[in-house]
């Protein structure tokens, strides 16, 4: 009887490990939460895209639930998601852009060509704010609550489906 149990131990271990690895290996490593989740929006000091004399800092994100979208003229997916962002702005959601690793000229051109859903754009040509946000490839979208705490993070392209099924419910949740 004891021997039987001992013999059973190995297949059980094997099955357990197989299940564990099967689950682990079918996870998508690019789908992971931002390290900044539930933390305050990082402190920054920058100018705006439109006006090099207008200074903004993290207090910009206090007082209202805000979607912060990190974009650049050089980023194709940013162009594709513009219609979705315009739709979100139409629904009275406050939008703030971070113009990431771009030039003023190209950024302004982008906005006049693809539309401007943003209340204001933080100009981040060296990617310093982007680095503090842990951005490693635009577009990325952060939901910041009224206290300036990051509550949701969307990596990459925002599809119309993402707007309906993820972004809007999250905005409602934190309003």
């Amino acid at each position, binding site marked *: 009887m004891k*021997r039987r149990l*001992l013999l059973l*131990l*190995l297949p059980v*271990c094997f099955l357990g490990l197989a299940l564990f690895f099967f689950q682990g290996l079918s996870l998508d*490593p*690019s789908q*992971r*939460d*931002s*390290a*900044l989740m539930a933390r305050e929006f990082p402190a920054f000091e920058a100018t705006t895209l439109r006006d090099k004399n207008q200074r903004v800092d993290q207090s910009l994100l206090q007082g209202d639930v805000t979607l912060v979208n990190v974009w650049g003229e050089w980023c194709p997916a940013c162009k594709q998601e513009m219609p979705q962002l315009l739709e979100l702005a139409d629904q009275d959601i406050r939008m703030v852009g971070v113009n990431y*690793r771009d030039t003023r000229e190209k950024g302004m051109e982008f906005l006049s060509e693809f539309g401007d859903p943003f209340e204001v754009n933080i100009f981040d040509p060296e*990617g310093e704010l982007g*680095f*503090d*946000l*842990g*951005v*490693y*490839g635009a577009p990325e979208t952060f939901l910041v609550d009224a206290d300036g705490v990051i509550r949701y993070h969307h990596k990459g392209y925002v599809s119309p489906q993402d707007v309906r099924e993820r972004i809007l419910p999250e905005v409602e949740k934190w309003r």
Partner: protein
Amino acid sequence: MALMRTMVALLLLVIAFGAAAGGIELREFDDPVMEKRYHDLTASMRCPLCENQAINDSDAPISGDMRERVYQLLQDGQSDIEIVNHMVQRFGEYILYNPRLESRTYLLWGLPIALVLLGALVVVLMIRARRNASAKALSAEERQRIDALINRKRSS
């Protein structure tokens, strides 16, 4: 022969381009210890964008930014732990090739040790079972029966 020469030329060209595309900056260090720390740190962090490359081995723009930041923080006199924390705060535990020991990673670090211990336990149990089996003495009746069987074989 001509073909051979072309192939060698092509190969050299590929190697040359490969080296140029590596794009790893040349950095100046006053202190060889700091240089070593820089190499160790950039080899121990994973590029967030490209899953299986360290930031010292990756052409992704974010890896360049991270190398630059490591260099800056080293120049500022920060310790290795501070630099690692600085990066993890922004990009998450994901970037560490050696995850830190904490409640979330107990299973990861503990599983290999647990498996080795389990294996040792199985081996010990097997040896003990075998020893018990061979040490078990035969009863008088069993011995008589064996003798009878052996004798029958001999006499036939």
